[in-house]
């Protein structure tokens, strides 16, 4: 699949960055406004879906290859577990202990600010990375096996 017409390509080359930025906004402000890591990650994947539908599969794989996407997926998952284990080691032997909030922000009135809530924004970033990369992988995997493609490769 070589992609769609030049109208779709032009519009999507303008819109893709806005969608990506909106996903980053949803992830970073997840502890203040509605949204969070999961919704923001899906929006990040949606921007890549837009690129794939407009420009075709090969162009997308040049931008974000399958290996890099699976590495990002694993990085997000490991980052989330690392946050949990750091809390476990830092204080009280309780999993997901919010050590930054309890040790450094306690008593200060940091609510409604971007840098607040301790480990929660970090967890949001990890989950957003994980969800975005894995949903991108699903699309890449499912779009790889269309009946037309396999017959072309065999011939």
């Amino acid at each position, binding site marked *: 699949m070589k992609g769609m017409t030049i109208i779709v390509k032009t519009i999507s080359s303008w819109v893709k960055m806005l969608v990506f930025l909106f996903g980053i906004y949803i992830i970073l402000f997840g502890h203040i406004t509605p949204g969070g890591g999961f919704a923001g990650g899906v929006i990040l994947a949606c921007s890549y879906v837009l690129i794939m539908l407009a420009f075709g599969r090969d162009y997308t794989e040049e931008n974000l290859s399958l290996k890099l996407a699976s590495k990002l997926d694993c990085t997000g998952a490991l980052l989330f577990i690392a946050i949990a284990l750091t809390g476990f080691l830092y204080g009280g032997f309780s999993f997901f202990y919010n050590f930054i909030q309890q040790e450094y922000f306690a008593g200060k009135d940091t609510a409604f600010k971007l840098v607040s809530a301790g480990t929660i924004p970090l967890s949001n970033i990890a989950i957003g990375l994980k969800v975005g990369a894995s949903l991108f992988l699903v699309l890449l995997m*499912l779009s790889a096996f269309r009946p*037309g493609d396999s017959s072309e490769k065999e011939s």
Partner: protein
Amino acid sequence: MEHLEFYILLLFVIIGSLVAVETKNLLSAVICIGAAGFGGSLMFLFLKAPDIAITQIVVEVLALVILIRVTISRDKTFISGDWELIGVIFSVGFLLIIFLAGTKVFDALPEFGSPSFIANNQGDTASQHYIQEGINETGAANIVTSVILDYRAYDTLGEATVLFTSILGAVVILRKQSRNRLETGP
């Protein structure tokens, strides 16, 4: 009837799900699932849960795109000329209805920044504790995030593990190298 639009959306979701199960055409089943999902996200907005509504609508868009992309080459569907006008009228009508329901939803939502989540009664349950002490203990202004990523973060870890495992299975089953190697021999 007090919440008439809520019941209309509920009926819409039920009809969409039934058609999706019963229809023979794969593509129309996928589209019916999408319609049911969008009705569900509007219902979440009526129940004053914008976090879930945002997640539902973006997952629905992505799932619809993936499923249509997978099914569209398997199942060729053509609409004949006689039905084209009726189809346009129906789709514009449905868009209008969903738009009107969406504008009603914004009346039902609480005003931005108003503390609608703080209850008046002084209960001693866990949910009351989350509501009253969440902003002091976690520092997160969004109470949903403070629950899912601080108090109940272990659940979120399980959810992330489920997603990770399913993606792992999909990548392993659908990968390209082993298929080619099997076809050509080692």
